[in-house]
């Protein structure tokens, strides 16, 4: 049976070629368990590098104009790319 594995990559800007600043892995097969602080290096140098390794991009971050009056406000990471692989479980 195929189960979904998600890799979430937070890129430096909206380009799929840009360096990765943060990442998460959620494995629906239950084989791997990942948590906060369990790795020091990103699994891929960029979203493109992950695509070349077989990951499918299922979400591109929308580019949004900042709210008037809050142009410099920062909160969440803007460039969140969600990728998937289907793995046997």
């Amino acid at each position: 049976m195929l189960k979904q594995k998600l890799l979430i990559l937070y890129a430096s800007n909206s380009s799929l070629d840009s360096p990765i600043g943060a990442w998460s892995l959620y494995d629906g097969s239950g084989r791997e368990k990942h948590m906060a602080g369990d790795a020091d290096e990103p699994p891929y140098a960029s979203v493109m590098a992950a695509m070349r390794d077989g990951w499918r991009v299922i979400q591109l971050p929308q580019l949004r104009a900042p709210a008037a009056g809050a142009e410099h406000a920062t909160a969440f990471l803007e460039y969140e790319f969600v990728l998937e692989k289907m793995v046997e479980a």
Partner: protein
Amino acid sequence: MTAARRLTSLQVAGFVADGALRFDGIVPRALSDAALAELAGGGPPSPFGADPSSPAAGWPGKPLAGLFRDWPALSAVLELPAVAAVIESLLGPDPIYDHHYAHVIAARNEWSQPWHADAILDPRGAAFDIQLCFFFHDTPREMGGTMYLPGSHLRRVNESAIARYQNFVGQEAMACPAGSLLICHHGIWHCGQPNRTDRARTMFKLRLNPRAPQRLVWDTTDLHDPRIGKVLSRDHGWYGHDVRLEIANRIRVWRALTGDPRFDVDFWLTRIENDPLG
């Protein structure tokens, strides 16, 4: 005025850039052991979740001075000249007690707390609380300790809204010798790490609030050190091209802390404040 030297402008600029300052071994070993013993013996009751009729529930909002008098080791830790000088350098005199908590992670606890910011989303512009995290025993990496994300403190998120994130370039684990202190801005993103040793891990956290404007309350001898701009411009690597926005927001905090509305780095704010038609 405390006897020990207060923080320098460069150190405070580092706090504004990173949201944290680390002091390894600032508490002597014997006093650390005594403080641990007080915590193991029940320690001062935390107001967090306390019965509203209990004395602890009435602590938040009181002056810090003298509040821990019935716990002589913890009281002595807070009155160490080096510790008191750091508190005064960031908050000014007579800080307000907010709350404390002894976080104990059991031996062989493989679970990591998710990333979060404490309390609730804090919309204050420049004023800040500090959280003192004391590690009274040796805390090697396999014991945790607290992981924090330098440069995250000015981002406005609510508590565990960031729990989806697992790892960041530049994240730091507080692995440290006994008697170490991590002081964080209230907004810092952090998470308690797994304890893979056979011993419980204890971290004593104390949150304090400023009583008055936090303006030039440190040792300002080096206020015009040209390296301050470089410190405020640190790129922590994980927020990508937002780095210039981060620097702009740090400049705003530095202006508030120094009372200098024209302070700038690399012309970032001066340029966009020049609005002759506005």
